[in-house]
């Protein structure tokens, strides 16, 4: 067995997986509370990548940044996360809140509309060309290794930052007052509102957090892979959703594990399966179907009992 190829694939799989996990968390959080599939989530991720790009260029660009690389990076993340968070809240306010009592299909269509709108707005403003982050100028080309495990700085940064964000989110949901409110809203929205929880506010916060995570993922993607374009959110959103379903939608640890599985599967498929670099998405699709066939509620999900 070619171990160096295996390690390379593992590193890139973990990187991809962290990205997918962050996107999947956004889906899962929103689904857990509203039972709504936020189709526009992938496009929020795309907007995050572009916000990071603008922040980078507002701070002097990758070659002559105003501050040192680390500060610029941090500010890029802050801008992208805040911007996406606000965008997510606005989307909820405008496209989903008026439809809370509408038939179930209406918010899905509305989400589709938001997705088209964001994608083409990005096309209108950013243009169809690819934008480059020029990470090499900002961070340098140095790679590190542990034995045969080679990784670049952006890859390490992505995995570490993703883990950090996930830990923070888990603590937030488990320990804080708002997290408690989120859990109870997700359990039973009506009862939560009777207990004096401001459900609208909880939903806004949920959208803010989920979208901010997607924004962070967008910047990370751009740091690792360099190029961003207006259509990048679509496939990433699909993968993120696959990850959320794999892990059991609505479950936070499920989204994380699901993301890693999808990322690793995609990476290994690219390396080992026939025509992998062309058909990686088909292999991920096959994985999704397999999981749905065997365990429709996902790895960590509980089987839903429907009540009349």
């Amino acid at each position, binding site marked *: 067995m070619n171990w160096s190829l295996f390690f390379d694939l593992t590193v890139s799989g973990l990187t991809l997986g962290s990205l997918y996990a962050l996107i999947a968390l956004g889906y899962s959080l929103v689904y857990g509370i509203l039972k709504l599939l936020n189709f526009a989530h992938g496009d929020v991720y795309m907007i995050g990548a572009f916000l990071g790009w603008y922040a980078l260029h507002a701070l002097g660009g990758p070659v002559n940044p105003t501050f040192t690389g680390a500060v610029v990076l941090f500010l890029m993340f802050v801008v992208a996360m805040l911007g996406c968070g606000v965008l997510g809240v606005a989307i909820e306010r405008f496209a989903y809140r008026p439809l809370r009592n509408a038939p179930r299909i209406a918010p*899905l269509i509305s989400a589709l509309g938001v997705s*088209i*709108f964001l994608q083409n707005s990005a*096309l209108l403003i950013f243009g169809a060309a690819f934008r480059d982050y020029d990470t090499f100028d900002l961070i340098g080309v140095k790679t590190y290794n542990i034995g045969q495990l080679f990784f670049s700085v952006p890859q390490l940064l992505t995995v570490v930052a993703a883990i950090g964000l996930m830990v923070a989110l888990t603590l937030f949901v488990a320990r804080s007052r708002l997290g408690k409110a989120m859990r109870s809203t997700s359990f039973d929205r009506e009862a939560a509102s009777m207990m004096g929880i401001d459900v609208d506010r909880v939903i806004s916060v949920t959208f803010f957090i989920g979208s901010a995570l997607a924004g962070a993922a967008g910047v990370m993607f751009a740091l690792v892979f360099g190029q961003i374009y207006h259509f990048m959110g679509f496939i990433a959103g699909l993968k993120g959703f696959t990850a959320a379903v794999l892990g059991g939608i609505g479950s936070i640890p499920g989204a994380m594990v699901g993301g890693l599985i999808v990322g690793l599967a995609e990476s290994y498929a690219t390396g080992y399966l026939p025509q992998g670099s062309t058909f990686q998405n088909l292999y991920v699709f096959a994985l999704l*179907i397999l999981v749905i066939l065997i365990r*429709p509620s996902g790895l960590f999900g509980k089987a839903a009992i429907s009540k009349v």
Partner: protein
Amino acid sequence: MEQPPDTPRIGVDEWVASVEGKRERYTGPRGAVLKRWERLPPAARVLVFATPAAVFPFLTSGGNLFRYGLFTLVYALLALGLNIVVGFAGLLDLGYVAFFGCGAYMYAILASPQFGNHWQAEAAIPVVVVFTAVVGLLVGLPSRRLLGDYLAILTLFFGQAFVVFVNNANRISFPFVGHADLTGGANGIANIDPFNFFGYRIDSTSQQYYLLLIAVALVLILLMFVNESRTGRAWRALREDPLAAEVMSIPVNRLKLLAFVFGAAVAGLTGAIYGTIATAALPGDYDVGLLITVYAIMILGGFGSIMGIVVGAVIVSSVPELLRSSANARPLFYGAILLAILVKLRPWRLLAAELGGLVAFGFAIHGIASAAYPRLVDGESIGSGVSARALDHWMLFPKNPVKIADVAYILLVAAIVVYPQLSRVWRAVLLPPLLYLVMFVWENLLLVHIGGATRLILLGAMLVALMNIRPQGLFGTATVEIA
């Protein structure tokens, strides 16, 4: 429906009664038309649409017939098939376009120089329809147990998988057969034969048009009968409440599969016809863009409303074609805005004040800009003629509008999100500047990109707005949620 507030709303019977009673309450000319319409037998309803459509080729040129006529009918047929899956059975199938593509590719494989097959249409069409129906069955099998949202994403993934597959299938080596160029890769399959029914070739535009018209009419009549049948009623029960339907011993899984297969078969038929019209099957034709168009048609028409879909197809396929040139786009856009204001603003004094305010605001801004920042008024509006030149004296046209228009666009989106949250007074005061901003963005940014992103932006915004105003679509009937 009037009822005392303390009695719970049980059962649908009251609701049914209220709908039945609605027919008696129609008044005025609209009521007279509606009453007539609801009394017409299905065949007569189809004739109401088919007659003008059949006369259409005599009134227009070949190019217009191709651009408006053929595409409207293709869209209508596609949306009718989608309506079975989404409108009747309530399954959100986002991979529907892939079945359309399957049909086109299958026909291309059977009747093009790609493999040297040149089947007759009477043999090829049934094979194509059965093939896509089987594909629909295969996709439906793992999906039948899924709830709405899971199904949506699975089918969306299937649609993407289809595009990836046809784009790259020229590189696959099959077991036993060896290498075979199944789909022509990114170049697609070209030179598809025209339909050849028993030696009668259908290759002129008007022949294709009538063939499509016949197909649409047949599917329409079929759907009307299905809609009234046991299966149609069961589908509707499934759509309204899958759990209740199952409890009433309706075979839910089998019906879901049936809807999937039925929809896929109609899409396959449409694909075969589209293949001969376009004379080529290209992977790019079966992507998300088409999916959104077909959904827009179905939503505009109203879920489950068969006739609404035909109207939706006419609107959705002709409006973007009209929007292609800025000469048509401008009056359409301003007309729509004016109409929205006329409907929304009451009383007329407020309306007059707002419009007057808008005109005054424009002149004031233009005056200030030309005095202080001449750069902002150096440019010219797109197009020629008196109205375009008159606009130059009122609207700002920067010499180099790219950057400022981008900022204005983002500002506009933010403003539209914030605007409904404001109080009444602020809304009234801020309406003229908001409208001015809308027009500024339209003239300086959207009109420039009218052939590309603008149309889809408008479509996306329209979907969100329509769902906000009328979640059931234009011609759909509202459903009540009985908790």
